[in-house]
């Protein structure tokens, strides 16, 4: 079954304590894996798109990596303003179409 699973569901870090969020997927024909950040009551903010295993992208304290089965979002020395829900979505081939499946997100809280 095509599935996207994010872990952990929730993560609490101290300011400066680096960690990683995981997005694992079981789809074939990957066309792209997307990371978004969402603040409460607001629309998701685009962070990264990864297309192939081995690809890495960075933005400030965030670094996203991709393997054939999962993606990691590494957060280096997080600050309280990094607190948000991080969503992962996977686009893949489904017959003649492409589908997009979303994970449930990881809620990150960074304490000062």
């Amino acid at each position: 079954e095509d599935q996207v699973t994010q872990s952990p569901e929730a993560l609490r870090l101290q300011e400066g304590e680096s960690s990683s969020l995981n997005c694992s997927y079981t789809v074939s024909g990957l066309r792209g894996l997307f990371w978004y950040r969402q603040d409460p009551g607001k629309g998701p903010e685009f962070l990264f798109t990864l297309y192939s295993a081995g690809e890495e992208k960075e933005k400030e304290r965030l670094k996203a990596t991709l393997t054939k089965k999962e993606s990691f979002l590494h957060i280096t020395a997080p600050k309280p303003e990094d607190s948000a829900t991080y969503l992962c979505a996977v686009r893949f081939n489904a017959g003649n179409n492409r589908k997009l499946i979303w994970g449930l997100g990881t809620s990150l809280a960074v304490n000062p």
Partner: protein
Amino acid sequence: DAGVTQSPTHLIKTRGQHVTLRCSPISGHKSVSWYQQVLGQGPQFIFQYYEKEERGRGNFPDRFSARQFPNYSSELNVNALLLGDSALYLCASRMAGTGVADTQYFGPGTRLTVL
């Protein structure tokens, strides 16, 4: 550059009423998708429109309908509102195509509360 815009920001309706939500995509984007998001869940796909044609529909009842206009803006309509329709409604636009054109950008959302 302006991002995706949505209106209204918040809306309170009563059961049985009808609601229209509006979305303007990023300039140059021809594809618009609508999502429903309830607290603690990922976005649930409702519709996708490209070049004014419906290109995808999620598992939502016929009370939900949408359309895209020649300027690529879009409306989502929901009839006979139920309490369970209370959610954040998100609009996303993309250029459409492959590669970087496949990335969706979201608007701020419309918070719908049904009483």
